[in-house]
């Protein structure tokens, strides 16, 4: 578990760099609520309470949820998400190891369906508004804004409505902007050569995704996750986007590059779909599971109405995982055929 947290660090750093302290504040908030909720649960379930976060799995869920929420999310939104993720999606099913669905994604989807306005408010404190290569989102001004957004009751004066602050610049990932506005600033930024280090959120996601890729490779290298799920998720997304891409098409479907690096594909492939508790576990099953998730990601993004496809796709995969496991049991030593229902 600690390695998973360590592997998240590059992405957390890049995300904070591009989205300001709001991102870090999200994660810290989630971590705090996770510790509190785990303590309460340990008391409620009469379990041994050993340490603030017990097995650290709640901290992983907290980081994953925190990084998926819009920066500087208001405290009750974060708390609600963590309550649903940890209490309902995890402990109500029996705690760690018994949850059929990924807790972080359950929390995320619940928030997305209940609070669409707050959940799509990807305002970037100042960075996008005052587009200036010398301006850093990590300035003190940005920190106070983030805190004021997260905890309105702490702010000295009335907080400006965030929609006013980030007028028209709401977006989770460039993919959303791409869908909403067609060939907009994102493509312009991607086409220009020095796009990688401009601090507009559009291209920031590239580096965040590279951060997740780096962390994911660390997990692979440490043999904490196996290659099956990430490779098949990425392969499915890549193949689908190559197959359906057409720049002449009236439908805006996005390029392969945008699907892989301008969206949440990397965190999904390496960190969310690989959650072992809710994923398929047989070798063939893991590949089927990954392909399913990758396919559904593309499907929902391009033909669905929600753009937060990873969360939905992972939940779809979780639904199918037990069945996939049963249908893909490997051939046991000394058996002529595979075991399982069609024995």
């Amino acid at each position, binding site marked *: 578990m600690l390695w998973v947290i360590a592997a998240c660090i590059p992405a957390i750093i890049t995300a904070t760099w591009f989205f300001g302290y709001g991102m870090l504040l999200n994660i810290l908030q989630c971590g705090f609520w996770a510790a509190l909720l785990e303590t309460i649960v340990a008391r409620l379930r009469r379990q041994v309470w050993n340490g603030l976060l017990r*097995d650290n*799995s709640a901290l992983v869920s907290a980081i994953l949820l925190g990084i998926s929420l819009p920066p500087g999310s208001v405290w009750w939104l974060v708390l609600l998400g963590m309550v649903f993720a940890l209490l309902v999606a995890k402990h109500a099913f029996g*705690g*760690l*190891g*018994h949850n059929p669905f990924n807790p972080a994604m359950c929390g995320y989807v619940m928030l997305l369906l209940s609070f669409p306005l707050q959940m799509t408010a990807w305002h970037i404190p100042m960075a996008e508004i005052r587009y200036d290569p010398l301006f850093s989102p990590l300035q003190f001004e940005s920190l106070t804004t983030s805190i004021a957004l997260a905890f309105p009751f702490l702010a000295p004066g009335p907080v400006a409505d965030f929609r006013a602050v980030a007028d028209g610049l709401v977006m989770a990932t460039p993919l959303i902007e791409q869908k909403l506005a067609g060939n907009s600033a994102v493509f312009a930024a991607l086409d220009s050569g020095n796009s990688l280090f401009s601090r507009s959120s559009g291209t920031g996601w590239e580096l965040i995704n590279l951060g997740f890729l780096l962390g994911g490779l660390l997990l692979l290298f440490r043999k904490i996750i*196996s290659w099956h799920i990430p490779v098949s998720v990425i392969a499915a997304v890549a193949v689908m986007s190559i197959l359906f891409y057409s720049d002449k098409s009236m439908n805006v479907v996005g390029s392969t590059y945008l699907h892989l690096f301008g969206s949440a594909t990397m965190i999904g492939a390496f960190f969310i779909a690989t959650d*072992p*508790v809710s*994923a398929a*576990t*047989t*070798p063939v099953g893991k590949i089927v599971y990954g392909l399913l998730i990758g396919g559904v990601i593309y499907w929902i993004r391009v033909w669905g109405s929600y753009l937060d496809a990873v969360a939905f796709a992972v939940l779809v995969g979780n639904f199918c995982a037990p069945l996939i*496991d049963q249908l893909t*049991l*490997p*051939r*046991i*030593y*000394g*058996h*002529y055929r595979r*075991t*399982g229902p069609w*024995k």
Partner: protein
Amino acid sequence: MNRNSMPGKPVKAIKSVRLHGGIRPPPFKTRSLRSVIMATPVPEHLIIPLIQYGGQIAAPAVAVGDKVLKGQALTRIDLEGICPIHAPTSGTIEAIEPLPVADEFTTYQPCVVLRSDGEDCWTALDALPDWDTSPPEDLISRIHRAGVIGLGGAGFPLAKKLHSLQGRKLETLIINAVECEPYISCDQALVRARTADLVSGIQILRYITGATRTVIAIGNNKTDAIDALRQHLPRTEIRLVTVPPDYPAGSEKQLIQRIVRRQLPRDALPADIGALVVNAGTAYAVFRAIVLGQPLVSRITTLCGETLATPKNFEALIGTPVFFLLELCGVDYQRLSHLLCGGSIMGHTVTDLNVPLDKTTNCLIAGSEQEFPTLPEPMECIRCGYCASACPVSLQPQLLYRHIRAGALEQAEQSGVQDCIECGACNWVCPSHIPLLQYYRYAKYELESLAARRLQSQQWQQRFELHQYRMARKHKSKPQQKPDDRIAGADAAIPQFDRNQARIEIAAAVERARARRENLIASSAQAINSHEPLTAVRKTKIENPHQ
């Protein structure tokens, strides 16, 4: 257990080259391999268990008070399938009674207690140096009479194994010197020190089986043993195969797959696919049995563990008490907390230091608390799948665990729990310290008793139906009989139920049972106390390391 095919029935090949799973634990063998194989002195008392492979008890052929010579059969040699047991030294039979033995649960089993006379005098031996002129059947019968069983751990009688060929041609004879489990080094010590004798033992087996190909498999990290073999093998037709030092590379199924490139079908014996695996120690015992005519009265066994000052490999007489061996190695009883019989992965805990060394004891580990620390409390399974990638028979331990925890034994059976070879690799890799193997053993046991209960209820039903059928037939043939009268008469015959009388009778029965139990305890205590040196029971804390 799963063998339901007819003997000799041809089986379909499962071609498979790639071996799945396995782990590579640290070997811990260097300490015990520092010295040469040492012959133990003869202890004053030897306890020879009569229990055989599969739980049969060999019938004793001697009586208390008999004088026996070393190598004289203690049990009847004429019984089919039951290997005879021989006197490990010359002396007097002192008792034949149940004593604790080093099986999995340290239960009492019938044993012969032999008091050594210090002479260690052999009986007349029937040596056969020119074995290649005798028919193979004669050699197999000699092997049976010499009491040679598989010394790798399971203890399957070798003669029975050789008979399983049933005249079929053997393609591959595999001599197993892999010894993949940590701590055990007796085969390595044997191979490097007694190579010539081992090779002639293999030659005898090759002659008996008529194998087209004979290989000796050994772990590729055992360089000294490999060098010794390289010196002796060129003049023979035995080929050397080195295998990676993975666990369980030395398991019969895995070894067959590696060398024959076929998996052993679940309902077949190795002989059915033209392969036979014999442990190196067994091949050496064959040499002793045929060429020297000596029955199996001693074996090479490893003594190791942190609490021993000088761990080494012993050539120990069967029946030597464990504490005698431990003291020869300078055991530190203060630190001894775990005594394992077998390797550190598959071995089981021994709680009584008076248990004797038997033919299958390949290793004794006298471990300290630091060496086998108590595992932390098991955590929940997060289905990481490390166990599935370690499982050598491609099971999905995490799914089996889930089924068993849920009580879905049938589902566990469907997912192949019966195919588990109980190697314990899953336990070794589990990051949550779940004793997975114990769950599978439990499931296997439960499934077995479930099947037995089912069979029993079927039999009862059958009996009941037959009874009903007989009753109906009787009723038809004698319709004039009045059943009511009979019942009334029976009622009168039953004495009136008296509560006080019943209470007295119950109390008397309880008293009888208690007396019987105390009597039993007293007699077994007396039996143990009658052998003064054996009863120096050391009070040491011995716990199951897996709990």
